[in-house]
């Protein structure tokens, strides 16, 4: 019988993102990974854009004009959203890792996410 189906393997990382059968801590785990992937992609894009400076001010200014594009603006908004969610969720993980609020990690998660949503709302209002 093919017993590999139900066994652990590195290729099963997609299961991290399936919310079915997961609970609050699992959703927080998935959220942290999703935002981390997004921020890593952004880091490379950011370095690529900074690389434009090496081609002279003209090339960089040309890119800056792009930032008025609604799609790019949405992307920038998404970066701030990811930073807030990842950062605040990360503080929860640091706290629990040092034994602070381990038995209250659900409440910590909801608390930090409420703070994140408020900050996202404030940023959205200012941006648009």
């Amino acid at each position: 019988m093919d017993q590999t189906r139900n066994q652990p393997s590195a290729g099963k990382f997609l299961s991290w993102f399936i919310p079915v059968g997961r609970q609050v801590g699992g959703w927080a785990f998935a959220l942290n990974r999703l935002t981390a992937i997004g921020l890593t992609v952004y880091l490379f894009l950011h370095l690529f854009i900074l690389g434009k400076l090496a081609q002279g001010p003209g090339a960089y200014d040309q890119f800056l004009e792009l930032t008025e594009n609604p799609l790019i603006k949405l992307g920038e908004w998404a970066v701030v959203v990811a930073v807030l969610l990842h950062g605040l969720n990360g503080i929860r993980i640091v706290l629990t890792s040092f034994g602070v609020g381990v038995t209250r990690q659900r409440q910590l998660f909801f608390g930090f996410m409420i703070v994140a949503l408020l900050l996202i709302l404030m940023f959205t209002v200012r941006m648009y």
Partner: protein
Amino acid sequence: MTESWKITLRMFRQKENQDSHFDDFQMDVKPDEYVLDAVERAWAFHDRTICFRHACHHSTCGACGMRVNGVEKLTCITLIRDVTHHGATLKVEPLRNFPVVSDLAVDMGSFYRKMEAVGARAVLPVTEAEIENPPSKWDADDSQYIRLSDCLECGLCMSACPIMATTPEYLGPAPLAAAQDQGLKRKPELLSIVDCEDGVWRCHSAFECTAVCPSFVDPARRIMNLRTQVVDMRLRKLFGKA
């Protein structure tokens, strides 16, 4: 009159050299029966080839762990009322992260080997147990009393842990909790087992282990505490105080 529900028990099936599928069993159940009762009824009255593990029926042996509607449960203490409703489907699947032997039975050998590697205790002195309302001071005589360890070795935490799904070498929640239970000061030889790539630092705080544990072992809290013990011991070694 005793309440009766009609439910569909949707069961994962897989036999040797066959593809997996789900079988549906229509049955009448009482909502205050347990999920294991429904599985046993399917075996007794519908299909005698159903394979599943069970023994004590009162959450001591830890044999009947399964996924019920996607969530790890000890089926002998999971009320049908709590996981489905009249006219609905109740889905049972084997635990994740263990090879399927047949239907709902999985091979938990790798898990037991890890428990053995950390010297998990089946019984412990009552003076070392985490109990409700412990006395402020134990009498010398009390150390003669022993009790069963909280961990049933049911493997629910190993199934629910997302890191276990991708890293078979990871020690996992129950073995790490068993190491914490003994304490690194008492058993310093555990340090090299837990303070490594696939030890206590591999946990990524999903807390799924604690969420599904039927015996209040709280493996996540114990893992965090074990990290503190590891750091403490490493610092002591660094400054020559170990």
